[in-house]
């Protein structure tokens, strides 16, 4: 293996992992507030299809991004309304959101094209690589980190901002508190209901953005089942990351890397005869391995773990 090959694989790993990072951080923010949103897959694919359609018709990739985030936020709001106001079972609501999202996305893919036709096979505006002067000249790191599309750069900002927000700001403290013990936070004057709504919507917006990165940058265009189960990988990544944005990046890059290697191996399948379907399985196999390893590791560290009130509805006047 030469340096160019490594650079190429890592570069693809980064761009392949970007949508996972957005969605994982979105889900981390939502889960930190105590709301489990299993609708990630549905929200991502809705963001991907509507984001692409909006970009195609407006001829602006940026409008596509904004619309995808609005759709994600709207679906986050639906989840919030059902689970926070109506106190519905969160797992069931999330699954319903995923089933609805994938079905609706498939339908919209047939309808949102020009003159009510299909979106499949169309080429629309997309985000292309932008080399950052000077920084991209740094050997090895430059071409990997600083020769990417603008959403990758936005991802760097989101990771740093999310980490700082969570651990170094007053609002971040409140976010961590409402997911650990809503009773405590409420008694201390934190508005649990409002904040849970807010972070479920913000989380949905980031998940929608993750979907948009797929259809507007990584694999531009729309095709059936574009997300291919990435939403479920995100759920596993949140656990792997122990609800910490930085570790989400590590996990997302790992998955991106497996994707990149898989593409490479398929492209050069002349010398190693591995069926493409087996290679396609690799990210999901990795998810299983990681889920086992993380659970095993978490047994030895009591600080790493899910927010204590994750998945539990909160009702102030409920008598204990």
């Amino acid at each position, binding site marked *: 293996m030469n340096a160019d090959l490594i650079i190429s694989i890592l570069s693809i790993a980064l761009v392949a992992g970007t949508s996972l990072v957005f969605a994982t951080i979105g889900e981390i923010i939502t889960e930190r507030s105590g709301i489990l949103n299993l609708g990630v897959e549905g929200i991502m694919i809705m963001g991907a299809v509507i984001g692409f359609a909006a970009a195609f018709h407006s001829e602006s990739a940026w409008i596509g991004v904004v619309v995808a985030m609005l759709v994600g936020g709207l679906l986050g709001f639906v989840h919030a309304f059902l689970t926070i106001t109506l106190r519905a079972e969160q797992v069931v609501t999330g699954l319903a959101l995923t089933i609805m999202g994938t079905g609706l996305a498939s339908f919209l893919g047939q309808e949102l094209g020009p003159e009510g036709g299909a979106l499949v096979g169309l080429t629309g505006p997309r985000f292309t690589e932008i080399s950052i002067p000077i920084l991209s000249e740094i050997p090895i790191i430059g071409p990997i980190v600083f020769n990417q599309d603008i959403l990758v750069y936005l991802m760097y900002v989101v990771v740093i901002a999310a980490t700082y927000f969570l651990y*170094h700001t007053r609002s971040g*403290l409140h976010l961590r508190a409402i997911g*650990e013990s809503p009773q405590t936070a409420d008694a201390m004057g*934190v508005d649990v209901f409002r904040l849970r709504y807010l972070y479920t919507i913000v989380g949905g917006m980031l998940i929608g953005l993750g979907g948009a990165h797929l259809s507007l940058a990584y694999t531009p265009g729309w095709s059936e089942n574009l997300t291919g189960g990435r939403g479920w990988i995100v759920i596993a990544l949140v656990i792997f990351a122990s609800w910490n944005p930085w570790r989400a990046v590590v996990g997302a890059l790992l998955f991106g890397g497996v994707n990149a290697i898989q593409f490479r191996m398929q492209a050069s399948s002349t010398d190693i005869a591995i069926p493409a379907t087996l290679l396609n399985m690799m990210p999901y196999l990795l998810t299983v391995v990681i889920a086992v390893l993380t659970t095993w590791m978490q047994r030895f560290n009591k600080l790493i773990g899910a927010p204590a009130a994750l998945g539990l509805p909160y009702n102030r*006047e409920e008598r204990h």
Partner: protein
Amino acid sequence: MPDTSAPIAVEMRGITKRFPGVLANHKVDFAVRVGEIHALLGENGAGKSTLMSVLCGLYQQDEGKILLAQKRELSPVQIHSPSDAFDLGIGMIHQHFKLIPTQTVAENMILGLKDTPFNLQMTAIENRIRDLADRYRLEVDPRAYIWQLSVGERQRVEILKVLYRGANILILDEPTAVLTPQEADELGAVMRNMASEGKALIFISHKLDEIMAFADRVTVLRSGENVATVEVSNSSKTELAQLMVGRPVLFTIEKPPSQLGDVVVAMEKVSALNDKGLPALDNVSLEIRSGEIVGIAGVAGNGQRELAEVVTGLRPTTTGRITIRNRDMTHQPPYQFIQQGVAHVPGDRLGMGLAGNLPVSDNMIMKSYNREPISSGIFLRNQMIRTFAQNLVKAFQVLTPNLETPARNLSGGNQQKAILAREITAGKNLTKGDEPPFLVTVYPTRGLDVGAIETVRRELLEQRAQGVAILLISEQLDELLALSDRIAVLHGGEIMGIVDAAEADIEHLGLMMAGELHI
């Protein structure tokens, strides 16, 4: 002594609060003066916590108003949320601590505070906490995580948290429930100190001794109504108890001398782990004889639960030996313990003791379902179940609308009577006449009203008279002293000493509970 003409700090007038099916507070009047420690006395369910939850904004009153001293004048205030209460200088120290275990002391302090800068300056906050801690002598490390702290330290954090917010009116909800007698005395001194700095303290309790020791005035609530507000110095324990219960109360329960028989249960150097896999019991050796009540004293979380689970076969032992009537039971499953006549009244009534959604009748047969006459082969006999359950309900005076009522709908006292009925009966049925059963009771009177407490205690003494060996785990020293023949003190999973209850000294027990005395 505080100034009896001191101005009113806060006044509640005609407060009424209803919950579905319950009138928790009915037209309660209540006022606290500046610099005063004012106790709020009442039985469980008398409405003390509800009244204070209204004052600190957790609940909204249905009727009545709250007046607060503002600029030397009493004026009505609206408290819609805990943060409104904080803004008005009212802070509550809850019985179940409102602390987030995975965050530090300092982070817990500033939670919900609006005037904290958006970018957290933790060093400045930590210094402010240290200053405050010095002033009120409430030592605590601002950087420690809550899960690392002892219960006493957590309580200090709670008090500091309220002071940090500049509260002038502090509400303490049963603050001594989780403390050793020495820690409780320290808390008394801290409260006096705060009162002398001009704070008004409201102190919720149902323990008469500590009210006599700490409070200036006391308001007694009964069935949601204010029955009296009296000066502590002009009152007595007997008078307060009568006000609280509504009838004269006997503080002593007659305990006939014990008729000791053979050793029923023997533990030899038993060790066990807790749920987290950490050591919970350390070389515990204990013998319980027929006709004997052995009490276990200790601050909650020092191995009591694990001890109860080990002697009922629910928790595996790591080392040591358990025998029941000389039969080795080590590593036997719970079923074998039950077959030996081991009965268990667990501390968690609805979690472990009863299946809340199942009818009373099903709960009654849970230890007899697989025996004649309740079942025949694989079939249950419904008529027999009804008769069996009906007999138990009658014999133990369980108040239930009918046998089909879900167990969770019974009151706490009746749930406890139902469990006692099932366990005592099963213990007797499974042993032969000359083999005394073994009864393990964990916090048997927790959360019960005075009437039910008396019934449960009498029942335990009745079983003792019939030769049952009883292990009584309790957090109330007076209960242990009244019922036990011997008292063993658990601290950190170790038995610090076993003393004769008749000669036990509260000071010594307290020191052993704190781990400072080993005999």
